[in-house]
């Protein structure tokens, strides 16, 4: 095994242990999950700054490592702001032109003292041929003002700071950095069935924008935004993969011990074969998700290769997780339908994941555009 592979295995083991314990709190054993995890625990494990430069207090790692944490968060169905505050915020900041303000935010994220949210699009958006920004910067006699709205934005409602994707008068894209309590900025929690995710509505009405708060992308801004939405899709695919494996493990564990008609239900072909199908699905999805994460982590990957891999991973894992969590509920029988079993937590999270950052059908449409 290479050093890099060993480091990743170590990270996975630590994450599984740590998040597993967090997820267990207050749930029955059959299906842990749904509990929150203390932000300082994540900071202490050095997961907040995985992609932050070492000089800023980060680990100088890549998205491949972030993907492992994302998968383990899904496995434990943990409630956390990791997607919005880390995966998307750090990803966004790393694509911007370097600057002291930007670097300060990165170092604060790594330290766990700042929990921001990247507001790039509505939560169901995916990269389309035409990238558009949810906010716009408009001049006014008193200076530039920000207007716009984005819905179902992960982890926005509780964020300290917002990184808002905006278009200026000339149509070029930039990130507007804003304190979340800034006048004219409104953050509203949008409660959803999946209680492990926090989604928020972000509205900007004539928010004052100083020139120093407008941060430019280092390269082609449209390509950068495309990458960020692909990053979001892959991170959610990782989450779906992790939660699917948890549901398979819970179902197999239950089928081994639950007896009906005088024998374990796992010895019946109807149950055994359903579990076998779940394992096959998980194995295939793991290949696609790993491939996508590695492509995104490699700065040399062409945009279209990242996009295709992201769409395959997101469509496959998104569909699969709902199917597997659904089968898990079915194979657990009556107990599976109880609130206490916690399986509903996974089913709701899987269904929400499927809709976040592009439904499977939307991703397949993007794939088909390559040959249709």
């Amino acid at each position, binding site marked *: 095994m290479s050093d890099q592979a060993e480091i990743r295995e170590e990270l996975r083991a630590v994450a599984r242990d740590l998040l597993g314990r967090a997820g267990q709190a207050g749930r029955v054993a059959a299906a842990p999950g749904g509990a929150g995890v203390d932000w300082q625990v994540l900071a202490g494990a050095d997961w907040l700054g995985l992609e932050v430069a070492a000089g800023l207090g980060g680990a100088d790692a890549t998205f491949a490592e972030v993907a492992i944490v994302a998968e383990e968060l899904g496995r434990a169905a943990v409630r956390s702001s990791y997607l919005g505050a880390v995966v998307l915020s750090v990803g966004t900041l790393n694509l911007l032109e370097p600057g002291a303000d930007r670097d300060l935010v990165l170092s604060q994220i790594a330290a766990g003292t700042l929990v921001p949210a990247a507001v790039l699009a509505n939560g169901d958006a995916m990269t389309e041929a035409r990238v558009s920004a949810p906010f716009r910067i408009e001049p006014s006699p008193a200076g530039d003002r920000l207007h716009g709205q984005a819905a179902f934005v992960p982890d926005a409602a509780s964020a300290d700071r917002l990184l808002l994707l905006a278009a200026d008068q000339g149509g070029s894209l930039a990130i507007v950095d804003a304190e979340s309590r800034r006048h004219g900025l409104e953050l509203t929690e949008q409660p959803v069935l999946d209680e492990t995710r926090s989604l928020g509505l972000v509205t900007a009405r004539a928010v004052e924008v100083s020139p120093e708060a407008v941060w430019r992308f280092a390269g082609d801004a449209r390509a950068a935004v495309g990458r960020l939405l692909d990053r979001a899709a892959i991170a959610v695919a990782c989450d779906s993969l992790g939660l699917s494996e948890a549901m*398979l493990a819970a179902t*197999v564990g239950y*089928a*081994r011990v639950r007896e009906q008609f005088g*024998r*374990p239900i*796992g*010895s*019946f*072909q109807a*149950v*055994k*074969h359903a*579990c*076998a*199908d779940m*394992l*096959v699905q998980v*194995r*295939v*999805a793991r*290949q*696609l998700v790993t*491939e996508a994460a590695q492509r995104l982590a490699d700065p040399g990957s062409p945009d279209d290769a990242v996009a295709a891999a992201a*769409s*395959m991973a997101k*469509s*496959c894992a998104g569909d699969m997780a709902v199917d597997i969590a659904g089968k898990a509920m079915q194979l657990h029988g009556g107990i599976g339908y109880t609130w206490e079993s916690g399986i509903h937590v996974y089913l709701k999270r899987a269904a929400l994941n499927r809709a976040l950052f592009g439904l499977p*059908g939307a*991703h*397949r*449409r993007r*794939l*088909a555009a390559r*040959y*249709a």
Partner: protein
Amino acid sequence: MTAAAATAGREEFRAAVREWCRTHVPSGWRQAQTGASDEEYVGFQRAWFAELRAAGFAVPHWPAAWGGGMSAAEQVVLYSELAAADAPRLILAFVSIHHAASTLLAAGTPEQCQRHLPAILDGEIWVQGFSEPEAGSDLASLRTSARREGDAYVVNGQKLWASGAQHADWCLLLARTDPAVPKRRGISYFLLDMRTPGVEVRPIRQATGESHFGEIFLTDVVIPAGQLIGPENGGWQVAQATLGAERGMTMLELAERLGQVGFRRLVEACSRPAASGGRPIDDGLVQDKLAEFETEITGLRSLCRSLIEDHEAGCSGPADASIVKLYYSELLQRLTDFGTQISGLPAHAELCKPASAGWESGAWALDFIGSWEWTIPGGTSEIQRTIIGERGLGLPREPAAG
């Protein structure tokens, strides 16, 4: 060697294989093999095998001492380039170079290996004599008997579904040598010369109308004791150890074919105007299905590569080969079914498909019917699911009947 040097070496090898394919894959072989007679098919298969052998591409998976020795990474490149070039497949020699060779290498004596491995390279054809009329999924209940008489065994029984039996020189034969012990402990594994008196082959006509398989009738067939492979009554264990051994690379080859040839042909079929005028590919539902197939095939190819890597590293799981076989066979079935739907009635008017082609020849309706040749033999999909459940997930076995 650094990773970069390995990659550079692989790319050089890829270019070499690509060039070889450009100059050696016979043009128009699909047309020539469509409706080919048995002799034309066998002659073509032998000639193509000789071509591959001359290039060092026929048995890359064998040990170097026997004429192979290609690294797994290079084999991946080789099979993916052969698929991309739409080269003919090795069908006649399939059992010889995979099952026979892996059995000889795993359990054969030096004399047995010396007798057969070079002969296989020279074109010796093998058939597998495992299934019987009363022993399909429950293979271990086979009844063909082998009775020891002096320096030989006398064999009586009937074998079924022997692929390529009518062309075979030799047979990998499982027979019962001890009827008194539990069924898996009384089976022995033999190398049977098909020219031995008492061996009779009758073709079986299969669902596609072709006759790739045969029945083998064995009446007082005498097999010298030196042609027993592995220990007497240890045949089941030899068969188990070698059955899955060749799965990885052959599955990779088939997955590459499905991706490079099958999917390409499917997109072409969807892009042709239908009788009603429009093109299927302009339909959103068709696009969705195509993208799903592309995703599934990409996952399959990746799964095959990691199966090979894990096998090399000695960390493959006990159900990994079953997972790949099950996924491939059902994906093939769904894909050929979709091709059949897309192609409409004209697909049903294609009454024969090219011999020597893969499982996705583009004669979609026949390919679809033929896809059951993957979901039934080599352990049915149901048997694979049981293996995955029990060995892969550790679920309890079904209480044994009787």
